[in-house]
């Protein structure tokens, strides 16, 4: 199934303008899906495929809520929030996964810059969150331990 995609133009015009745009543009209006990024096998490659070579700086304004020791690596509950002004995108990576890029979210005008989801983690590693604001990437990491318990079955 082929889907036409057009670059979605971000304006500062506010909701009225974006509402008008949304009415005339079909559902899949965002930048070409980051297929390459989702298929990349390393954290660096995935970041590059998703955001190009934008400069990255560590930030204390990104909050990652995740367990210290995951009960089960197939269902790790994570909540991400940020108060970085002008955030337009939030992406989450699990470094040790076969494909590190787990999910990415566009921060749209009405949306609060926080999301919750459940992710898979192959083994103990860092969760890396990147927030794009303008042409800069802000980063925070948090380690989640994934272990094999004693009571399989």
């Amino acid at each position, binding site marked *: *199934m082929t889907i036409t995609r057009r670059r979605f133009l971000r304006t500062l015009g506010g*909701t009225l303008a*974006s*509402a008008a745009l*949304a*009415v005339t543009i079909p*559902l*899949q*209006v*965002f930048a070409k*899906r*980051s297929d390459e990024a*989702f298929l990349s096998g390393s954290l660096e490659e995935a970041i590059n495929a998703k955001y190009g070579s934008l400069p990255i700086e560590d930030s204390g304004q990104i909050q990652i809520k995740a367990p210290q020791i995951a009960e089960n690596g*197939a*269902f*790790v*509950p994570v*909540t991400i929030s940020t108060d970085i002004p002008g955030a337009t995108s939030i992406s989450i990576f*699990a470094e040790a*996964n*076969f*494909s*590190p*890029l*787990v*999910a*990415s*979210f*566009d921060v*749209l005008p*009405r*949306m*609060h810059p*926080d*999301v*919750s*989801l*459940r*992710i*898979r983690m192959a083994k103990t590693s860092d969760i890396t969150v990147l927030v794009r604001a303008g042409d800069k990437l802000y980063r925070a990491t948090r380690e989640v331990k994934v272990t094999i318990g004693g009571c399989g079955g």
Partner: protein
Amino acid sequence: MKVKAVAKGDAVSVKMLIKHPMEMGRRKDAEGNLIPAHYITEVTVKYNGEIVFHSELGPGVSMDPYLAFTFDGAKAGESISLSWMDNKGQSERVDAIIGGT
């Protein structure tokens, strides 16, 4: 696709639980054949024709994906439209009424 949308003051909290295997495409079945990748690639939520949530997912998201977010400006009684699409071209769309006060 199950949805819980609740208005709290000016904000609407939206939670979704989508039945989907999110097959990574790296596992093998009992006969040793690779089980093909089958996972949701995109989730979108619209309010009044405006996209209020858009995300891209990969196989690193847990099966039966759970997603939660909050957006401003809608009220209880109004409706939102949620849809997803997967890598096999399958999709689903549901409309949900916002609850709460």
